[in-house]
């Protein structure tokens, strides 16, 4: 191709000043725009490349390109089959000139220029269609006086296939170089080698290779000396980026110039030290998070385990309480149940077992209080229903009311129990008895019929019939029925009830001897812990017999005393038993012992008028036994005053105590007889 002469005018516009260089794609001249008086660069495209130019539209696209690191293309024309491109004249030197002088650039400079080249290429590659420079090399990179790069001589050919014009050996990608084997080159469906934007990435890598090594890469990739074989004063990270850009196989190369730019922009983050730091941060974070997760998991497991342990401890307490109940140690049992309730107040089994223990302890007031708590609390009530215990709770409450002789309330509770469990014959039995005690004999009879229908035993039936007979004052029938019950029943509770009822019936009939006989029989049948009520009743019966004033009175008082003392010694005595013991001792003339008991009761129950009342009667009897001259009723008056004061406070329901009335009569006599003088 013939060159142009200095002064030659092209297209009547551009006058050639000098030749700037001869590249793979064509010869570049410095020219002056005649009218604008401005230097431009005119590139005369080589003929073999010019043949690739097809349309005017491509030229228009090139003219529209505008980028900081690209020269502006002004014109594009064809004269005599020669194609010319007119663009900005870039003052300064090309990178090649610096490299030929052996200038070694600092890492910082290389990175800055590499980024600028990437930005320029990214701009070209993002055009539609993408523009492939195809001839990136030091000679086509101008260093402006400002220190920036300008990528010149970009090719006029578009597209992504076939041979590209203007390539330079050493910088051209393998897929551009026909001499290279094409076995691992990307091909399209027709088998043609695909040359795309990645070729520019290779060329850029090769240019950077030249910059860092000072040597142009070999034309054949196989002959290129790997960067790590040089003793270079550049970071491994930069060399790794160059190495990746220069991969002969496009699959291992950067897939876009943007990827390469991204690595260059964050090159410090690719540094091994930075990566090590990040790894350490991630590792420590994962370790700590792992530790936290394990601890939280342990905490959660502990929470679940705590629940299970609490439930187990609760069950243990309840079971211990039940064992105490079996052993008759009700106070210890109640303590266990209270501890269980303290652990879980929403669980009902401890409440229920405590209620049962209290019912065995003959504490009807506490049983009722607990029953009201259980039945009024919606949650506890529901749980009792779930456990089929509600009927039993109502039944025990009914028994407690029955024990307190509140038969109306007992009937209500028994009915509620039957609402929850309608096939309980024992509940029917006790309901019938409660109705009988209320003198509702018809109702009792009707319930008895229902009880029989629900399988009430003959012994239980006889018990109810005995109660009915007792209400009708048919004492003979009552005794017969209770006797039948004692003989037929195998339930100790029912038999004991029959024993008591039989004894009561005999008492009502005025037959104290048979009453004592029955009670002695009951006492001998059952042990003291199980049958302390027999001892109480028997003591009372002996005392009554003693009060009849027969020759054997002292013997009966002694027997009564023995019964009461057995109860007091075993801790099973009620308050009334203590008073009865004092009275019996008084009847036997054992005044000191009687006084001890009463003083003890006064100390323990300072609000109870009965102890000072009995003490006044006792002291009066003691004084009565002395000679008239020696009598001093001062203590009697003192105890009386105390008892009278407490008695007034106690009489809220208006009931009168015959013994107190008796004492008041005695006091009147003492004042009337001038044994005592009233203080004004």
């Amino acid at each position, binding site marked *: 191709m013939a060159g142009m002469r200095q002064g030659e005018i092209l297209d009547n516009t551009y006058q050639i000043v000098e030749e700037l260089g001869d590249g793979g794609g064509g010869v570049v001249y410095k020219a002056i725009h005649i009218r604008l008086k401005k230097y431009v660069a005119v590139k005369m495209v080589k003929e073999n490349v010019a043949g690739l130019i097809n349309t005017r539209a491509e030229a228009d696209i090139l003219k529209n390109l505008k980028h900081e690191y690209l020269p502006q293309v002004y014109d594009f024309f064809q004269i005599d089959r020669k194609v010319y491109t007119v663009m900005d004249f870039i003052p300064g030197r090309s990178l090649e000139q610096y490299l030929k002088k052996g200038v070694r650039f600092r*890492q910082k400079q290389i990175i800055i220029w590499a980024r600028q080249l990437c930005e320029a290429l990214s701009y070209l590659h993002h055009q539609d269609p993408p523009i492939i420079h195809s001839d990136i090399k030091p000679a086509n990179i101008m260093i402006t006086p400002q220190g920036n790069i300008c990528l010149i001589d970009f090719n006029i050919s578009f597209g992504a296939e076939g041979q590209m014009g203007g390539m330079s050996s050493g910088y051209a990608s393998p897929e551009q170089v026909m001499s290279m084997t094409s076995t691992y080159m990307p091909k399209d469906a027709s088998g043609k080698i695909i040359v795309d934007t990645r070729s520019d990435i290779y060329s850029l890598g090769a240019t950077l290779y030249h910059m860092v090594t000072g040597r142009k890469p070999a034309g054949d990739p196989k002959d290129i000396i790997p960067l790590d074989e040089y003793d270079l004063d550049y970071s491994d990270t930069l060399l790794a980026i160059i190495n990746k850009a220069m991969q002969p196989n496009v699959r291992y190369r950067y897939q876009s110039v943007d990827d390469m730019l991204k690595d260059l922009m964050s*090159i410090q983050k690719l*540094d091994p*030290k930075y990566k090590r730091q990040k790894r350490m941060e991630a590792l420590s974070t994962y370790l700590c998070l792992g*530790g*936290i997760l394990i*601890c939280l998991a342990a905490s959660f497991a*502990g*929470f679940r*385990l705590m629940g299970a342990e609490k439930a187990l401890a609760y069950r243990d307490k309840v079971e211990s309480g039940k064992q105490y109940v079996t052993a008759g140690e009700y106070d210890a049992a109640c303590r266990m149940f209270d501890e269980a309730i303290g652990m879980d107040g929403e669980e009902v089994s401890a409440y229920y077992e405590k209620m049962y223990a209290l019912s065995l302890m003959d504490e009807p007031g506490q049983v009722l209080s607990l029953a009201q708590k259980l039945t009024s609390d919606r949650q506890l009530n529901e749980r009792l229903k779930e456990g089929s215990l509600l009927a039993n709770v109502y039944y025990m409450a009914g028994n407690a009311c029955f024990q307190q002789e509140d038969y109306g309330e007992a009937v209500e509770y028994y009915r509620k129990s039957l609402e929850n469990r309608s096939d309980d014959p024992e509940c029917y039995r006790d309901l019938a008895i409660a109705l009988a005690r209320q003198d509702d004999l018809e109702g009792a009879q009707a319930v008895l019929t229902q009880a029989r229908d629900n399988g009430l035993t003959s012994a239980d039936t006889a018990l109810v019939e005995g109660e009915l007979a007792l209400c009708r004052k048919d004492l003979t029938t009552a005794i017969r029925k209770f006797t039948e019950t004692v003989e037929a029943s195998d339930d100790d509770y029912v038999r004991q009830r029959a024993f008591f009822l039989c004894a009561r019936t005999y008492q009502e009939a005025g037959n104290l001897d048979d009453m004592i006989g029955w009670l002695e029989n009951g006492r001998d049948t059952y042990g003291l812990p199980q049958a302390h009520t027999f001892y109480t009743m028997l003591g009372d019966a002996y005392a009554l017999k003693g009060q009849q004033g027969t020759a054997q009175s002292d013997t009966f008082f002694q027997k009564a005393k023995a019964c009461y003392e057995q109860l007091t010694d075993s801790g099973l005595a009620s308050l009334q038993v203590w008073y009865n013991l004092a009275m019996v001792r008084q009847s036997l003339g054992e005044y000191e012992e009687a006084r001890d008991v009463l003083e003890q009761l006064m100390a323990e129950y300072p609000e109870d008028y009965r102890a000072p009342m009995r003490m006044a009667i006792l002291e009066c009897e003691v004084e009565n036994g002395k000679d008239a001259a020696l009598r001093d009723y001062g203590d009697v008056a003192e105890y009386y005053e105390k008892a009278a004061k407490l008695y007034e406070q106690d009489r809220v329901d208006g009931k009168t105590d015959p013994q107190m009335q008796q004492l008041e009569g005695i006091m009147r006599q003492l004042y009337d007889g001038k044994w005592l003088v009233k203080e004004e």
Partner: protein
Amino acid sequence: MTLGSLLFFGGIGGAVFFLIVMIVWKIVLHGKRRELMKELKDKYMVS
């Protein structure tokens, strides 16, 4: 103290401990990273 409560309270205590360690370690690493970034900035002269 039961095993359950030991696990529960120990777990919470351990989690708090690890959290504190993580926060302290993060602060230490943040300082180290800042120093490293300064060093890398000098190395690569990245603006």
